[in-house]
């Protein structure tokens, strides 16, 4: 059974009733868990910022503002979580496709920041790591949630592998276009 997740922006999150209405059946455990990860998105992005700030490319540009460091990462995270909450990207490719478009936009923008392809890859590895940290913060004290981690391992890997490739590809295409002109 394919689980589809609407754009979270259209969900009523004020009382969680919108989410509960969507996640009403027993097979919705994973989207419900991903939704709880989403609740930590500010912390995820903040920790991501602190993590990438230790990378040489960022340390070499200390005057880069927070908005320029983050670029499209908050949107990429949102798209990634929607994709992860979707059960089968081969049957419902739209969420992952949307997320890869956002990732590509981020990768392309990094060329303007004079960052290399390796830096882009490191950024997405850091985001993947922070998503995992957020997930572990939830499941480490909930035995019933541990069983979902195996499925989420596959979904997180599928999503972030695709996003990382999309971002690096976009950087490379932009770099080739820039060098040709």
């Amino acid at each position, binding site marked *: 059974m394919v689980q589809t997740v609407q754009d979270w922006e259209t969900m009523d999150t004020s009382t969680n009733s919108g989410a509960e209405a969507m996640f009403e059946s027993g097979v919705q455990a994973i989207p419900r868990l991903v939704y709880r990860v989403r609740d930590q*998105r*500010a*912390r995820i*992005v*903040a*920790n991501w*910022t*602190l*993590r990438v*700030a*230790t990378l040489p490319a*960022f*340390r070499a540009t*200390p*005057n*880069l*503002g*927070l*908005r*320029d*460091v*983050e670029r499209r990462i*908050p949107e990429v995270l949102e798209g990634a979580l929607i994709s992860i909450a979707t059960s089968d990207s081969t049957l419902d490719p739209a969420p992952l496709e949307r997320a890869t478009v956002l990732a590509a936009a981020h990768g392309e923008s990094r060329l303007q920041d004079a960052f290399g392809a390796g830096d882009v890859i490191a950024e997405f590895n850091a985001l993947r790591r922070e998503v995992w*940290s957020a997930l572990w913060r939830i499941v480490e004290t909930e035995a019933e949630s541990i069983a979902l981690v195996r499925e989420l391992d596959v979904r997180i890997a599928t999503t972030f592998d695709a996003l990382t490739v999309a971002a690096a590809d976009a950087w490379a295409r932009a770099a080739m276009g820039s060098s040709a002109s």
Partner: protein
Amino acid sequence: MINLEERMTFADQERTMGDATSVLIVEDQHAIAELLLDVLVDAGYEASRAPSASEAATFARDTAPDVILLDVMMPDRSGWDVLDELRAEPVTRDIPVIITSAVYDRPGLHSMPPGGPIRFAAKPFDIADLIETVADLTT
């Protein structure tokens, strides 16, 4: 920019108006300083950033913060030198300091000057843990 419409309840305690603790940030990376300012203010603290590492101790003397977040690896002045200067001044000697560093720096390598409590936060730290440490030092 962090979506400030989303309340970040990193601190366990809700802070009340008029109860604001002041935090001074000494950090050369602009983005990290901005992030820390945003998060601390949203957690109910008054936060400010020293204009530079070389001016940090003077700024602390003038503003008397309750806690100082002190980066170690800064181009114009080492955080350890700033710490020595803070500890040399009666006004700033006992202010708690949280030393942040991307390099694991064993305390034994640098003698700690006498004064207020010192905590360490190795980058990349968890922002929620940092806020908790600030709360611990100021309650």
